[in-house]
């Protein structure tokens, strides 16, 4: 992307976004709620058009329906609404866009391969709504990777998972990258579970987008400049990063909360920590 800009209903979401994501690398997209992380993914998949700048996806202009691009949306009606099985859901990833009566011969084989890759086979025949969050994410990953995409876009694949399930999904994302050589872009809330596999960080905040290697972006100088006030990064003994000083935009996961500022520094820290490790 070069000098990319997106406006939604006349309001600029972010602008001057320039970054490259190399094949076979994992880029994590971070930033506060509502900053436009999902919008960034949607612009790559062609669901949201750029209002300015240029974007090239695998050599082409971004367009919907590109089989080389796999996309996993943040929320899926299938998870709660239906008694659809995982296998049928993954099958829709393969031929769900096809009209008509013809069945494809290699569907069973392709779906089976995707289930194998994501380790979703043991529970693929149960209804989605009876599965755990981690199991659903495995099936959603199988759905998104059914065509062995060269670019995999994942919107909050770790949301709502406990720490063990987060670690499993991160390992799986890493495995998919290694076996398929795909470039992966992951929107996340928390850097820590992904930190050991990340090649690149794209930080979206205050209508700006910063991109670079992890340590180049997630450091006090860059983040302080990005937010316009001092940011502190504390590294815990186990190597987890806790980011302090983002009370207005980052520390509070609930934008509709009553009071966004806390006088009590202790409580404030607890909130930040909760956000970062969630």
């Amino acid at each position, binding site marked *: 992307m070069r000098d990319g800009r997106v406006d939604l209903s006349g309001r600029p979401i972010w602008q001057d976004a320039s970054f490259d994501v190399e094949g076979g690398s994992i880029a994590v997209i971070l930033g506060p709620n509502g900053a436009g992380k999902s919008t960034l993914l949607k612009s790559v998949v062609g*669901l949201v058009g750029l209002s300015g700048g240029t974007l090239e996806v695998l050599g082409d202009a971004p367009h919907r329906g590109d089989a080389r691009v796999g996309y996993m*949306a943040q929320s899926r*009606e299938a998870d709660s609404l*239906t008694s659809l099985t995982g296998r*049928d*859901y993954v099958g*829709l990833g393969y031929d769900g*866009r096809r*009209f008509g009566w013809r069945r494809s011969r290699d569907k069973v084989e392709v779906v089976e391969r995707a289930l194998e890759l994501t380790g979703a086979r043991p529970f693929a025949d149960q209804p989605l709504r009876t599965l755990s969050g981690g199991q659903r994410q495995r099936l959603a990953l199988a759905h998104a990777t059914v065509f062995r995409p060269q670019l995999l876009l994942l919107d909050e694949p770790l949301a709502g998972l406990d720490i063990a399930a987060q670690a499993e999904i991160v390992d799986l994302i890493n495995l998919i990258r290694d076996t398929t050589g795909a470039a992966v872009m992951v929107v996340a809330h928390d850097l820590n579970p992904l930190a050991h596999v990340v090649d690149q960080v794209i930080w979206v905040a205050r209508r700006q987008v910063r991109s670079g290697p992890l340590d180049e972006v997630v450091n006090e100088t860059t983040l302080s400049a990005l937010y316009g006030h001092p940011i502190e990064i504390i590294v815990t003994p186990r190597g987890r990063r806790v980011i302090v000083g983002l009370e207005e935009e980052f520390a509070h996961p609930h934008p509709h909360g009553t009071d966004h500022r806390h006088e009590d520094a202790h409580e404030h820290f607890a909130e930040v920590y909760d956000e970062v490790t969630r």
Partner: protein
Amino acid sequence: MSVWQLLQTSFVQNAFYAVTAVSLAAGVVGYFVVLRRQAFAAHAIGHIGFAGAAGAVLIGLSPVWGLLAFCLGAGLVIGFAGTDLDDRDAVVGVTLTAALGLGVLFISLYSGYANATYSILFGQILGVSVSDVWLVAALSAAVVLASSGVFRPLLFASVDGQSAAARGLSVRAMSIVFMSLLALTTVVAIQIVGVLLVFSLLVAPAASAEVLTRHPGRAVVVATLVALGSSWLGLFLAVWIGGPVSFWITGLASTLYLVARVVAALRERGRRVAA
């Protein structure tokens, strides 16, 4: 006349052919009504059709044309404006009240005998003529054929709209296609069971199927079988014992739904005991 002789009369046989055609269409479309949580839209379309029928009678046309015009019109509006779950209910509600208001006006303007509109409300299954049977059969066949042709994309757009859109499907177009199919099915079903009981064929059988099976293709087959079973048996009981056919069909369809819930619950318990 014995019940067997009654069953051989032409009006019972016409009714038999008509419920068969309707049940086939209602089974397929009903599956998506339940899957997409659009029972309210199905309910509304029927009532909107009633207003259209009243309007057609007022200007001296057959009620079918009013039904078709209003149901399809409302289907297009709801399909176009109500693509996501959040505002769908409001769109359906506003369209419904607007149409019902017109219906009240049409009926108050009409000074003749309101028998035609009455039969739209409660159905007139035993008054089905041969030409009605052909119309019902043709519309049902069109609905079944079209639904099976768009089955996969409609399923995809219904269960994962975002990813379907990313794969190049238009979620709005699928919503319009679905509402049009629902409108056509409603027009057909209203002739048989009436506005007030359209639900019995559109929602109850598919709801039973969704409780009993997981695979989409199988659910459609089960829904169709439940619809066929309740309408055939309902027709037979009405001829044998008496009482309105729509009462029997509705009663059977709802009872079968209850049975399906009980069967599913027992099966679940059996599985837990086994595990």
